[in-house]
């Protein structure tokens, strides 16, 4: 029974990390209708900025704020300078550009910060909490991750549902022409969308890194799992991203913990889960409507 609890809690924490990354993907999808493959290496870049600050003696929280701010700037610059020129062409162009960006940013990180394997601190403990006389694998750090991700999800839902800016962003993404006719400054909304998505991406990068190891490619595995989580959730829904991440995290943890040679089956299982979900609900679990594009 203890073992079940341990495997479950490990999966839960891992799932929250997938959720964090999926949230960033959902955000950029909702606000620009582009799948951003560069999200992972953009997050890695800001994480390395934070790490450089921490190594220079700054506190974690200063580094966090700077990383989020630089994430926003990076996202806005990428949209204005790199994505804007290919927007309006075939949809695939922008996606391919983000793929190129993914490789380019990763290489830049290696050049600027080096490619060595480093540990990234967390402001909270990494020892499991003690409940009675047993220790459960839920650390103060995992509580911090879970809390942050839920908070961000809440803010995103509020942004899109209750604010005019959120509505304008959705309108711009839904149909640029129509939005423009209605007086929305579409260009600004797209830049804002990329900036915000990069902030959430940066946060997920920092959360994933905390109490673990970073190197220029450390987000690679999470990009895949983050995408799977986002697609399970429907790519459109912040709540879906969280649920998708948790389903994936738990399922992979059970596979790893109970299947023979489970650790080797984890990546394959992610694919199987994705296919099953898409067969049952092609739009993902939380898809709201099928033909939304104008």
């Amino acid at each position, binding site marked *: 029974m203890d073992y079940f609890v341990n495997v479950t809690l490990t999966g839960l924490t891992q799932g929250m990390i997938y959720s964090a990354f999926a949230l960033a993907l959902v955000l950029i999808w909702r606000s620009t209708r582009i799948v951003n493959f560069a999200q992972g290496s953009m997050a890695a870049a800001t994480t390395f900025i934070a790490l450089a600050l921490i190594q220079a003696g700054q506190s974690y929280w200063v580094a966090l704020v700077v990383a989020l701010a630089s994430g926003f700037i990076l996202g806005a610059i990428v949209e204005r300078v790199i994505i804007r020129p290919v927007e309006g062409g075939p949809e695939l162009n922008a996606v391919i550009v983000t793929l190129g960006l993914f490789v380019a940013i990763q290489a830049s990180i290696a050049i600027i910060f080096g490619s060595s394997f480093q540990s990234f601190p967390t402001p909270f403990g990494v020892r499991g909490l003690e409940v009675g006389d047993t220790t459960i694998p839920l650390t103060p750090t995992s509580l911090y991750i879970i809390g942050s991700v839920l908070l961000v999800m809440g803010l995103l839902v509020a942004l899109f549902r209750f604010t005019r800016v959120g509505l304008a962003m959705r309108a711009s993404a839904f149909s640029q022409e129509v939005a423009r006719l209605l007086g929305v400054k579409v260009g600004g909304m797209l830049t804002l969308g990329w900036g915000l998505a990069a902030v959430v991406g940066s946060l997920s990068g920092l959360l994933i890194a905390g109490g673990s190891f970073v190197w220029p490619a450390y987000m690679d595995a999470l990009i895949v799992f983050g995408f799977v989580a986002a697609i399970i959730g429907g790519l459109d829904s912040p709540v879906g991203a969280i649920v998708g991440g948790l389903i994936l995290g738990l399922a992979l943890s059970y596979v790893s*913990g109970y299947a023979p040679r489970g650790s080797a089956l984890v990546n394959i299982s992610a694919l199987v889960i994705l296919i099953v979900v898409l067969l049952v609900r092609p739009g993902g679990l939380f898809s709201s409507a099928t033909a939304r594009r104008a």
Partner: protein
Amino acid sequence: MTTIAAATVLSTVAACGGSDDSGGASGGGGGENEASDIGVTETSIKLGGHYPLTGVAAPGYSEIPTGLDAYFTCLNQEGGVYDREIEWIFRDDAYNPTQTSQVTNELVLEDEIFAMVSGLGTPTHSAVVDFLNDEGVPDLFVSSGSLLWGDNPEEYPMSFGWQTDYMSEGKIIGEYIAENFPDAQVGLFLQDDDFGEDGEAGIRQYIDDQIVAAERYTPGNTNVGPQIAALQAAGADFVVGFNVPSYTALSQLTALQLGYDPQWFYSNVGSDPTLVGGLLNRFSEGQVSDAALLDGALTTGYLPTVDMTDNPWIQEFQRIWDECGGEGELTNYRVYGMAQAYTVTQALQAAGQNPTREGLVEAIEQVGSEWEGPVFAPFRYSEDSHMGTSGMTIERIVGNGSEEVQPVRVTDIGDAPIEEFDGEPATPPANAIPDEEAVN
């Protein structure tokens, strides 16, 4: 995804000092240097290697070629081998077998190396071992304890192992546990490839009935929570890890989360306390302090380590690193590289004044088992075996160093018995440059 082709060519150091035979070896030829084979000129010998200089396996391992580099630089200053400079080229494969094939092609076909030296990693080197043997390129002293390179010279006549193989290591660990911890409930934490399999096969020869669980992790999957939790659930109070250093750190971190505190025993590969401690100590801003987590863990040794400052080999290697090394400190990985370079030098000397690829292999088979050097126990080289050294001590990690708890014992693969090693430790020759006679 990062593909930075890191190729480092050793800067050439002028070493031509007339025609006297100052090349270390005293017995060979006396004639003139000739361009006797691919990669050999009258004044140089070209050697190459592949390493993970980037990526998840880079910590530690990326330092090994810098150790070889420092040793060869100092060797060249003293005249190289038969007045030939060693030209040392190493390339980054990021521990990715596809890239290993690519950089090996470059080394063999474009750089035209005389021999591959110290190519690192079981999965990576497996991808090129057939190619090297088909091309007739000597494949010396693979940086991996897999049995592949040495147990079947008929299949791979050009390849040689160097470090203690994982099966022999497993046997020595198993015997130690059977003798000293007969009541321990043992759990195994294994990398899910040859490394873990060979180690498990060795250890089970001695304590099969004590093993309560064997958990495997896949390199690249950094969540080892379920595996460590399974060891805990099985009631293991003694965990033996056949894993790489980053997974030592991950297993320690996961055990902290689970509140799991068994006696740890990490095989040689995963146990470098400086590296693992360095990875662990910055977590939670000092709440997990230094190498203290590894304090008291057991491990094995087949080479002197940097903390043994009284050891004459370490003193010599420290001098070489200070004089000919690059940035950073002397580390155990650099010591490993230098010790390999020492064996390479022995082999080149034994191959004679005008070495050929075949002559090099024959020389190692004939006299390699007699060479003395920094490794604790002799190599097993012969026509029938290309296995490297087989001896290991058992050590307990204390701070950033270790103390010996069992002297060197030697064994071989299969069901060969384990014996205490009765040889004396070798002392380094002048400048830590060997002086082997040519056999051809």
